[in-house]
């Protein structure tokens, strides 16, 4: 857990940091943040509880507890990461722990859109590349500089062309990942849609 949390804001063009390898398929959001920590009315305290049960179980050997990962900020994960519950508490907890970006084989749908909505880019790479990366991290430390404009990740020894949904990439470059303002720009169109929709004419009040 880092000392002070500063949420991302505006355009996200570059992210650099040390990679942490977190091996496993189908890691669900109940594991990322167990339900008992959802009893809160803000996200502030979630960082310290991320992966609480897995970490307790591994008694200091969980990747997030290793001394060398203390300042890591890019999570390298496998397939279907973040499946299950839609709780935004999961990416919020990861972010508050210090994660700024993720690279994985694949991400679950709602988790992915939650990450975009709070400013955590999630990139994908083929299984083999992720496994190579995770093997590399076993022995050496991997520090990546990610350039969102070119979807490129550079390190001392390795370079990767990362994959990311074009719409997400553009949102990070323009700052529109924080969508409310963009959506509000079309308020007139929204009001027109409200008037047009058949079922809304059935009654304004449910």
């Amino acid at each position, binding site marked *: 857990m880092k000392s002070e949390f500063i949420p991302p804001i505006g355009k996200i063009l570059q992210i650099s940091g040390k990679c942490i390898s977190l091996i*496993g*398929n*189908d890691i*669900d959001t*109940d*594991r990322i943040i*167990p*339900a*008992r920590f*959802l*009893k*809160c*009315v*803000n996200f502030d305290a979630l960082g310290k509880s991320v992966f609480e049960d897995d970490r*307790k*179980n591994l008694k200091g050997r969980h990747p997030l507890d290793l001394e060398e990962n203390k300042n890591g900020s890019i999570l390298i994960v*496998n*397939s*279907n990461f973040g*499946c*299950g*519950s*839609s*709780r*935004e*508490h999961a990416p*919020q907890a990861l972010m508050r722990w210090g994660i700024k970006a993720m690279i994985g084989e*694949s991400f*679950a*749908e*709602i988790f992915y*859109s*939650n990450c975009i*909505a709070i400013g955590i880019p999630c990139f994908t790479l083929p299984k083999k590349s992720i496994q190579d990366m995770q093997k590399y991290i076993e022995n050496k430390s991997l520090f990546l500089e990610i350039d969102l404009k070119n979807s490129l990740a550079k390190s001392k020894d390795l370079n990767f062309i990362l994959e990311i*949904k074009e*719409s997400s990439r*553009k*949102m990070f470059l*323009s700052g*529109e990942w924080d*969508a*409310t303002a963009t*959506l*509000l720009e*079309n*308020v007139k*169109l*929204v009001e027109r*849609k*409200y008037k047009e*929709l*058949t*079922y*809304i*004419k*059935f*009654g*304004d*009040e*449910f």
Partner: protein
Amino acid sequence: MSKHTLFDKVWDLHKVSSLPGGSDQVFIGLHLIHEVTSPQAFGALKDKNLKVKFPNRTVATVDHIVPTDNQSRPFKDNLAEQMIETLEKNCLQHKIRFFNIGSGNQGIVHVVAPELGLTQPGMTIACGDSHTSTHGAFGSIAFGIGTSQVRDVLATQTIAMNKLKVRQIWCENKLSHGVYAKDLVLHIINQLGVKAGVGFAYEFAGPAINELSMEERMTICNMSIEGGARCGYINPDEKTFSYIKNKLCAPKNEDWDKALLWWKSLKSDENSIFDDLIKLDASKVEPTVTWGITPGQSVGINQQIPFLEKLSPNDQFVAKEAYEYMGFKPGQSIKNTPVDVCFIGSCTNGRISDLRVAAKVLKDKKVSKTVKAFVVPGSEKVAAEAKQEGLDKIFKESGFQWREPGCSMCLAMNSDKLIGNQVSASSSNRNFKGRQGSPTGRTLLMSPAMVAAAAINGKVSDVRKFINK
């Protein structure tokens, strides 16, 4: 790219604009909120000095944190009390209709909205809960969202989203006796895998789906997300319309006629084009039970827990983790696995028909002395109906505890939790590690009828032995 499907029609109707990045701005017709994923969204509105755009399109209830034993206020759990108070305050301040405990309409949000007739064909429905896919059973396009998107819906009644692809899952023939919608959906997830649905909406269709009641259809759509699909739906038909008719919030009089005409036009056309098509034979499905730590790890009641080499290389990693966590050996039979706790409830299987089916199995039988069993009705309405039919008595006489409505031990945010490495037979939707409240607790997902059978025998049992044709 899909064409002429219900999904395409509803999406196009609700599309407000194409956003600069390439995603769509989509109007949300019905927004459902609850106490867990909404407080931070209201907080963000306050920070940004924004109002709720259309308060009449949002409806609230309380479900995740409510205790199911003693619901008197203030709740014993201070944090739970703080959460319900926050929701009450937010609803009052923003003039949002709230179905609170004691209103007669409180319950699990995905049970309550259909009961009230809020859920209708052709709507887009969003809620900060992944099981929002449930509402697709009515031919609506319904999906779970995170808290930032809850904020966006409150502020703008829209969200930014990429259009999904559509996969039709065609279910041939019909389910055999003693096999339920839960078994079918567990089977589908097992066959397709837990991430096959990423990027897709699932259209469930075919004779086996047509045959299902509305409540069974909800069970199917509910678990779309367990197959990776954010949204699952079924084309509306006469069963859909007659379920909605005369419900509290259903269109009335002339509006009903207009609605009916419109709803009938929404069905996927004969010449629909799907991005993918899967066919399976529903008559081959057996009562199905999960043995692992993902909802895809299931077997028929007469099958064995699979050997590693029988699984695809992609599934082997999680299978190894599952054997270890569950304490099961490959090749072991799932039948006769001892269970400690039996739970009937949840947005998957906490409806009146689920309680009826379980009560039928339990009638004149006793729950095993080694088992703690409890039933949590999905809503106050379900509870009232069950009481009227005398189902509560059947449950209690058998040894089941009869509780108040809520999400309860599906995700264990209240005091209903597994202890240590207890094994539960559960009618809920997720068997993830630690899901039911104990970091080492183990969950076997199955139909409510199968939970009832497990409760009687104290071990996983074939419910078909308990019911007559």
